[in-house]
């Protein structure tokens, strides 16, 4: 059989003496400690230490982010902003914790401060967060419908041969570096937007949203398409057998069944979009003002968090308050992406329970 032939080929690499080795002795009286030590100094321990490397790297990143942002958090930790908030929520009794420059209130003030003006030492990152939300939200509004419909098309309507060409092309789209996206956006999209919408300058949140949506589309399309294809054939066959049209089957049977996978893909795309730096840096304009709460928000120049760090880090003195504030922004970013990842994992595990395999 073919399998045995393959096994033969593979096992050619085994050491010569495997068949003639003495049986390993089993010591019934092994001490607990010695067993762990033996396992540690074996290949298992060595590779185990390697596996811990990801954990160590994450801890290192978190440690240095916190260490460098402590100055700004302590400095902003004087509770005159959080006190009204707490009283309003009914926790006025706990106001005693606000009397010191502690880090928690510092974090609250940092995140809710609405002016980012480093020259006058005003470090509130609400405009930056709002900028990120506007750009990412716009990107999701564009990319989610297009991505989901495209995934439906690829899994249900597209002939197999064409699909095998289109899927690699979409994956190539994911591989294009973000500077190239930003560069093309800066040179072509920005003037075009200024012309179409009669704006002064095309460097707006809308340009960032469009570029970002192109960047996250491959994520949504590939993962959603996997999810829709993974729906058991029985669902579809049963629906068709009951007389539904293909369209109705897709809409009312397949999509609801694949909703976990599609949601996972959307959340992963959000995570990717939140962390995107270079493309939004080059096309979003970079003015740290709060965007207005209307449709006009897409036509104003914004400064997302990642762009703020990239643009201002080069010019701040190491150890200054501005430097520390930028690390605070980095810490907030890290926290947000950790949260997004956590939610995606939760949804993934729910999907596992439902279908018995990931996505």
């Amino acid at each position, binding site marked *: 059989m073919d399998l045995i032939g393959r096994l033969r080929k593979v096992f050619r690499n085994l050491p010569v003496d495997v068949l003639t080795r003495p049986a390993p002795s089993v010591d019934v009286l092994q001490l607990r400690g010695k067993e762990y030590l033996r396992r540690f100094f074996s290949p298992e321990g060595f590779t185990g230490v390697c596996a811990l490397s990801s954990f160590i790297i994450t801890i290192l990143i978190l440690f240095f982010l916190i260490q460098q942002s402590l100055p700004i958090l302590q400095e902003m930790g004087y509770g005159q902003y959080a006190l009204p908030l707490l009283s309003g929520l009914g926790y006025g009794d706990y106001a005693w914790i606000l009397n010191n420059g502690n880090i928690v209130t510092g974090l609250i003030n940092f995140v809710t401060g609405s002016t980012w003006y480093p020259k006058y030492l005003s470090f509130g990152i609400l405009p930056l967060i709002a900028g990120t939300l506007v750009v990412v939200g716009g990107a999701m509004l564009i990319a989610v419908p297009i991505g989901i419909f495209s995934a439906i098309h690829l899994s249900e309507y597209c002939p197999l041969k064409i699909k095998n060409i289109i899927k690699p092309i979409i994956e190539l789209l994911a591989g294009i570096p973000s500077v190239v996206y930003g560069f093309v956006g800066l040179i072509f999209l920005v003037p075009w937007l200024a012309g179409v919408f009669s704006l002064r300058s095309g460097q707006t949140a809308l340009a960032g949203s469009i570029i970002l949506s192109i960047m996250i589309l491959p994520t949504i399309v590939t993962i959603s398409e996997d999810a829709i294809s993974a729906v058991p054939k029985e669902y579809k066959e049963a629906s068709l057998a009951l007389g539904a049209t293909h369209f109705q089957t897709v809409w009312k049977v397949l999509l609801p069944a694949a909703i976990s996978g599609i949601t996972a893909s959307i959340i992963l795309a959000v995570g990717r979009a939140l962390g995107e730096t270079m493309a939004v840096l080059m096309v979003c304009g*970079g003015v740290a003002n709060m965007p207005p709460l209307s449709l006009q928000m897409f036509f104003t120049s914004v400064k997302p968090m990642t762009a703020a760090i990239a643009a201002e880090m*080069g010019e701040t003195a190491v150890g200054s308050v*501005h430097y520390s504030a930028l690390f605070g922004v980095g810490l907030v970013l890290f926290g947000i992406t950790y949260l997004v990842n956590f939610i995606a994992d939760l949804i993934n595990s729910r999907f596992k329970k439902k279908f018995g395999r990931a996505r």
Partner: protein
Amino acid sequence: MKAIRSLTPKKTALIILILLGIAAISAFVIYPYIFVKPQQDLQKTLGFYTGQPSDTINIAGSTTVMPISLAIAPLFHEFTGVNVQVSAGGSGQGYSNVIDRISPIGAASRSPSSDELSRAAANGVTLTLHPIALDAICIIWNIPGLFQGDLKLTKEQVAYVYSGVYTNWIQVNSSLPPFPIYVIGREPGSGTRQNFESNFGVGYTKVSQEVTNNQDMVSSVLSTPYSIGYCSLAYAANVYTAEIAGAGGTFYAPTKENVKDKLYPATRELCYVTNGIPIAGSLIAMFLYFVNSTIGQQAVELVGYVSII
């Protein structure tokens, strides 16, 4: 033939990996012998330099000074074989590098702030500025229908525009078209911005857009009608500049002659910053000597600034 016929994906992958590895290793091994230029004879060219060609000079700092550093670096390398590294970061970065003793030299387009002076004193560093070029803050503008020489402003008017008092061109001068002004500024850490704000007396600014460097400023102004911005002399070649009223009330355009004669009211010196006076015969002394010599200043003029000798 048999080997090619049975090209499994495993073999393909291994072959590609091996090729990549060979390419990487050979690149690292071969390049010193192909691409490094032979060293110049130091004694012949710079008789009193006492250092080694393997020394490096790291000039970080103002993006305004960067074209000068970029122009001088290959020339200096050709004479001495020294590696001159040029990076941007703003004047703040240049001062920080010298204050924290990261590099013996930095580039700055503004004078040090009180914060920087106190940090330098705390570190035992004396900030010494060596002027290498003359620059001017040019007010650049874009009003359709008007051309170079049509816009004359006083420093006060510019300050009003940037602090939001004037929001329409017609408030600036009744002969201008009645359109809202699109104000473009620089990012918070910029030395050019600091210079502009102290020179023109601007406090809290209200801008419609912030750019991060001179080139962006110029292209933004060029592409936005009814906009105003400011930039450095070397970048203002292709954009309309406003004539600013000097001390006596006459309007001067930011030309090289006006800047050299200090007639244009918003000039500044571009400097290299060092810790104290460099020791005679050291690499930094040699470098500064080179920059202030004929050939260095010729490079300065080529870049677009005004020579200081």
